[in-house]
């Protein structure tokens, strides 16, 4: 049974210079055709996979799903509802950016079953927002947040980024204070990553930007301290939640559950297969079978992925994934009978530790 469904909406108003997701400006894309194509893919997968899709979580990510017009959003959400058995659904998330929706669209989300919205605010410092190439203001970010609250979305999360060129610890701290004063149920705090094929990567290579390991660590630890003090549970490297507000959908990825991804560039894993849809919206719309690349996961692959992902979580990595219990120094990890759990010092070294023990 497939319990987790991801839907990719690749449209963004403006392309952020650090982003390596599959996305583009809506341009001349026929939105009606796009929504139909998503629903058609769902039908196609339901027919061809031969396993029931009964979602416990649905995640509309992007790109910017909140960019869809109310009409198209409504037809997508109701199209999904009419096709799926939602009797087991516990979480239906949608990614939103400030300045792409108002109170009416927020209400529409709520009416169509969205339970959780993750709001890409990134920063409350205008200068940092400018560096990041985001076209919303801190004011618009707050307004967007308030719309979601007003529409009574049950779980609201805020996405933030840190260690951005020009961002001081003070500015990061102010962003955290501004964000937490809104009392979101969940926060994601991402270290800026210089991904290949992005403008930021070029600037890093040309020396306009410089990576700063100390700044990364300082910002990371500051966030962790600040947020845990306010009662957020640091349940994954970049994720913090108030009780009962963890992202179930993301936890499913980490644990290794199967998931179906719909939309251009979306990835699905139904063991032992993992496939990626064609990362081209136009072709996606016109194809019956949008599968682009498929890989077959061996049990070793699966184990490696668990090591890489579960070490990042507060639950830790079950020892059963390792051939022997590693002797990690106690300042980096605690080892119980069943799990390795990284300490606050160890957690930001998760990638190093994964290489060492895998």
């Amino acid at each position, binding site marked *: 049974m497939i319990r987790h469904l*991801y839907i990719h909406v690749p449209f963004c108003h403006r392309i952020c210079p650090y982003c390596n*997701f599959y996305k583009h400006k809506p341009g001349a894309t026929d939105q009606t055709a796009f929504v139909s194509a998503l629903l058609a893919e769902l039908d196609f997968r339901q027919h061809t996979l031969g396993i029931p899709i009964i979602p416990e979580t649905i995640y509309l990510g992007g790109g910017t799903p909140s960019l869809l017009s109310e009409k198209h959003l409504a037809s997508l959400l109701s199209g999904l509802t009419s096709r799926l058995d939602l009797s087991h659904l516990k979480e239906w998330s949608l990614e939103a950016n400030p300045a792409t929706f108002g109170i009416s669209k927020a209400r529409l989300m709520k009416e169509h079953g969205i339970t959780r919205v993750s709001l890409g605010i990134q920063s409350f410092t205008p200068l940092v927002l400018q560096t990041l190439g985001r076209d919303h203001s801190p004011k618009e970010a707050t307004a967007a947040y308030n719309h979601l609250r007003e529409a009574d979305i049950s779980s609201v999360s805020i996405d933030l980024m840190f260690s951005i060129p020009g961002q001081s610890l003070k500015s990061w701290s102010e962003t955290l204070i501004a964000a937490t004063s809104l009392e979101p149920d969940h926060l994601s705090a*991402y*270290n*800026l*990553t210089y991904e290949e094929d992005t403008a930021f990567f070029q600037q890093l290579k040309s020396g306009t930007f410089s990576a700063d*390991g*100390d700044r*990364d*660590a300082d910002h*990371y630890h500051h966030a962790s301290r600040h947020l845990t003090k306010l009662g957020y549970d640091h349940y994954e*490297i*970049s994720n913090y939640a108030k009780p009962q507000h963890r992202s179930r959908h*993301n936890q499913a*990825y*980490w644990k290794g559950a199967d*998931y179906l*991804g719909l939309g251009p*560039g*979306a*990835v699905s*894993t139904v063991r032992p297969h*993992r496939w*990626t849809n064609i990362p081209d919206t136009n072709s996606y719309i016109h194809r019956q079978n949008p599968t682009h690349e498929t*890989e077959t996961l061996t049990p070793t*692959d699966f184990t*490696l*992925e668990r*090591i*890489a*992902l579960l070490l*990042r979580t507060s639950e830790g990595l079950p020892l059963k994934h390792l051939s022997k219990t*590693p*002797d*990690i*120094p106690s300042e*980096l990890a605690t080892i119980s009978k069943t799990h390795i759990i990284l300490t606050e010092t160890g*957690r*930001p*070294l*998760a*990638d*190093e*530790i*994964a*290489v*060492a023990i*895998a």
Partner: protein
Amino acid sequence: MSLERTRNFSIIAHIDHGKTTLSDRLLEHTQTITEREQQDQLLDGMDLERERGITIKSHPVTMNYVAKDGLTYKLNLLDTPGHVDFSYEVSRSLAACEGAILIVDAAQGVEAQTVANLHLANAQNLTIVPVVNKIDLPNADLPMAHRMLEDILAIPAEDAVPASAKMGIGIEEILEAVVTRVPSPKVIGGDDGLLRASVFDSLYDSFRGVISYVRMFSGTLKRGTSIRMMSTGKIYDVKEVGVFTPKMTKRDVLESGDVGYLIANMKSAAEVKIGDTATESQRPAPEPLAGFKEIQPMVFAGIYPVSTDDFEQLKLAVGKLQINDAAFQFTSESSAALGFGFRCGFLGLLHMEIILERLRREFNMDIISTYPGVIYEVTKTDGSDLEVDNPTFLPDASQIEEIREPMVKAFILVPNDYIGEMMQLTMEKRGTLINTETLDDTRVMLTVRLPLNEILVDFNDKLKSATKGYGSMDYEHDGYEPAKLVKMDVLINAEPVDAFSSIVHTTKAQSRGRALCAKLKEVIPVQMFKVPIQASIGANIIARETINAMRKNVTAKCYGGDISRKRKLLEKQKKGKEKMKMFGKVNIPQEAFIKVLKSGD
């Protein structure tokens, strides 16, 4: 062509005075090469020579020249290297000749290697054809060059042919001087007609095996001749003979006086001995020709394959390279840090660099080398003596009675204005001034005694910068001298790393230790824990640095679309480690060794 119309000569000079460029002009003038084949420094055939603009190997070439007397002469030219590290090449080339063109740069005048190479030629009683080259340069100073020829070299100025190899001035005059002044090839053994061919160089070719470069001193050599190599006693059938034009060109026969090559069935380095005499196996010469003085390498370093799997391949490669470089020596050794490799001996640092580069390029070897050093003589407290070419084998200080280091006598030719700077440099390098000889009113020749170890790495650069490029140096070995030397170890995370050990003078230990620790701090990757780097002499820590623990290395986002990428990254990183990385143990990557050992001090 008869012996009377053959001339064998080398071109010798200080580095960069224009030997190879003059060779170009001679090749063109005699139409040995066509216009189409023509290119600058044609005889510098190795990529490495072309890139660095220096000659590394001697290159023979046979030319035909129609002289003013109307007769055609066969001229065998040997272009030689100018750098002091390759003087062994020069002396072997000279042994194949009766004459030498001695070039002096019209702007630089006589330099140290001019003097040294002239001495080599005189020792073999060669006829010298002096040439003052580069007269086209705006700062050429012909009267100065003439004065120096007379004052320093005792060569009459009127003998010198003024020339510009670059502009093609004086070429005909040089060729005429060779024809008229250099005697025809000497023949050994009277007219007994027995074969005597001296092997002065060799080369390994993967298709044809060993190619021996020969100078014929008597007899004839052709395909099918059964020869005996007089030092190894081995017998071979000659497969091919020929001359260099400059590429190898097959000939039916090599005759007395000729310079050319022979190919027999030799496959390995052990079969080739430079300086050996080839004679006919049925009618052998009674005595071999005088061989060459065995050359003793002075600079030593370990060469290791980057990947331990490549040891066998490296073994083949060093063996083959040795065929083409008689001065290069090696024996196998092992290092705790670097695995199996070779302790290699070189004539100098440039020689070492060239060998490393040739192994990389010609044999595709991925290698690293340890820091270059010299051979020390040690007398132990129990009275026994030993030689140490690898710091790892230096006995414990408590067992050492005395350590002696190799010394050199350096002849430094400098303008008067820079004597002070040179004295300063000499002191810095633990040297003593032995003699100051006034050469003319502007220049002196300083004779300085220095530890070899001190001039290995950067002495020549410092000499050049201290004298604004006007100073030059030649040196010869000058015995051993007791010195306060100690072994300096490097400890990384409290464990000694043998590849970084060195033998240093007590007065230099601290600065070198500091520099080394600082460099290591730069190149050793940050670990998950704090890593101390220390330099020590015995139990004494003399320098220290600390690499702070890594604070953060974690991917920011890991969701559905990122998982495969994340796994592949992990797989790749894992592959980089040979065995499971242990917590608390520092993995020093090969690149770190390369960077540190390369950067010297």
